[in-house]
């Protein structure tokens, strides 16, 4: 959108768009709930780690595997570490991994979707076969195999989740691009002499953007779940504590049989809440951006 008259007008427009979007969005209870949850967790991840300490207890055995108390709100783990502190610190890794992987997925998905849909023909056929393969291959085994081969590190986990999660998005973006490509305004753009890149940037992208946005939210939910699962299955980086990593240690150390629910439940609830938050927002966006659903 390069052609806006001047900066002031651009600001007016942005305000106008946001206001009309917010006007519809705020009536959606689910969407607001999701937003509140995510804002809370974002704050927790941003500033929380500066207020807690997550170290092994010095005093020894009596501080180990303690149920919740005034001193340790969520009890302690097998090394006497405060579970609440672990949850707070883990939020940062979980969110960062989830979001970074989402960005990778969305960039790959959007680019492949738009290019494939716009150019069509052989390129489309090739890209869509590739997408089919990524859609069909069971993603957890693939991720596990890749993570096992690449070795456990944060970067690898992000990469693995990112490059296995784009296919669904590419499919959706492609079909939307196909439909937008046929709209007369794209033909009009060609008729006034626009090139392919101009059309993709100024006509296709702005019109698939809402879809990309809504999809990003849903992919983020899946990415966070994937991180948790991979870490739980021992493919995470043991030096950086995430919720999944906490659950991995808890499970491996027999917290289930010991009945140490305070060690197993809080990280899980955090994952559920964050994923729910994203899902709620995703659903709300779908309703806001898709007028056909709004009628209901």
């Amino acid at each position, binding site marked *: *959108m*390069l*052609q*806006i*008259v*001047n900066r002031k*007008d651009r600001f*007016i*427009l942005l305000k*106008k768009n946001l206001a009309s979007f917010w006007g519809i969005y705020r009536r959606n209870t689910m969407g607001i709930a999701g937003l509140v949850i995510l804002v809370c967790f974002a704050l927790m991840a941003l500033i929380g780690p500066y207020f807690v300490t997550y170290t092994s207890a010095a005093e020894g055995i009596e501080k180990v595997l303690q149920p919740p108390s005034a001193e340790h709100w969520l009890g302690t783990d097998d090394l006497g570490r405060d579970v609440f502190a672990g949850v707070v610190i883990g939020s940062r890794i979980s969110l960062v991994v989830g979001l970074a992987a989402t960005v990778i997925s969305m960039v790959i998905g959007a680019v492949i979707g738009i290019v494939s849909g716009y150019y069509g023909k052989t390129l489309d*056929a090739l890209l869509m076969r590739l997408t089919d393969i990524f859609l069909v291959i069971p993603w957890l085994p693939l991720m596990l195999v890749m993570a096992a081969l690449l070795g456990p590190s944060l970067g690898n986990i992000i990469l693995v989740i990112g490059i296995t999660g784009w296919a669904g998005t590419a499919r959706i973006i492609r079909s939307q691009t196909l439909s937008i490509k046929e*709209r*007369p*305004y794209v*033909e*009009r*753009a*060609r*008729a*006034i*002499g*626009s*090139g392919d890149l*101009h059309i993709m940037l*100024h*006509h296709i992208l*702005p*019109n698939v*953007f809402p879809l990309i946005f809504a999809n990003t939210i849903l992919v983020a939910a899946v990415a966070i779940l994937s991180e948790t699962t991979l870490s739980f299955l021992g493919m995470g980086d043991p030096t950086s504590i995430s919720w999944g990593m906490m659950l991995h240690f808890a499970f491996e150390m027999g917290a289930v049989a010991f009945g140490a629910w305070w060690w197993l439940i809080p990280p899980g609830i955090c994952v559920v809440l964050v994923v729910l938050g994203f899902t709620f927002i995703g659903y709300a966006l779908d309703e806001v951006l898709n007028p056909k659903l709004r009628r209901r």
Partner: protein
Amino acid sequence: MTALVDVDQLEVHFTARAGLLRSMFGRETPVVRAVDGVSFTLGKGEILCLAGESGSGKTTTGKAILRLVEPTAGKVYYAGEDVRAYNRSKLRSFRQEAQIIFQDPYESLNPRQTVFNIVAEPLEVNNLCHSLAEKEERVARALIDAGLHNPQELFLRYPHELSGGQRQRLAIAGSLVLDPKFIVADEPVSMLDLSIRAGILKLMVDLRDQKGISYLFITHDLSLAWLVSDRIAIMYLGKIVELGSADTVIKDPLHPYTRALVSVIPAPRRKVITRQSLLKGETPDPVNVPPGCRFHPRCPVALPRCREEVPPYREVRPGHFAACHLING
């Protein structure tokens, strides 16, 4: 009147979609003969109407002239130059002079662009304006020319904030900003309510009178064709079957198909029971074009030879062309 656009035996064939394996095994893919040998000329400042039912190839003809669809065969001359031989830069300057207006004003405007962006985009794409002030002025002038007054107020609006009539005017403004000499108007009013149609048509005719813009006006509605155009060409299954001045084609049609079409022109004061020549069936699929005269299966007066011989397209009377075996020259 000198010819601005000269179309000579234009053909556009589409191949139906073929799968990878299908093409590998070399099976024949069905060919859609959307436009199959169309010739006409359009004079400077003339309004020529291409009329016909859906599937007649009228829209494809319009798009092929602008090379929005690549012709399969035939020639298109614009101001004496071969449009099909244009290179990239020539095509660019051609597209500044030759514009298209689409049927659906709801679909032909990008919903995420503002009024200003829509009208300024052609200037931007073609690098025609260097200062903002100049751009603003040209956009405003185009909007006023298209009958949208106080343009500054509209600049930051989105298409969905305008009414149907306003949108179509906006689409016209988006063409006018480049000072076009030739506009293909593809059913420009068929999506609009009757009460606002006339305003758009009047605008288009006024622009011709003031700026000398030539139009190829594509419509399925013969009464509209008759109202706005100088000459009318009737298309059926990818071919022109009759072409002549608006009054003669409507008041004294030669081809049986034209006669049938004229007899069903919607008019409030006509009764359906009085209709004599209501055609049977529907226009066949352009994949299976009948041999001989392609109208013969539905023609009420077909002769045996119509089934085999393609009728020649010839000038029956001065300026009045038709393709039918039954017409004696």
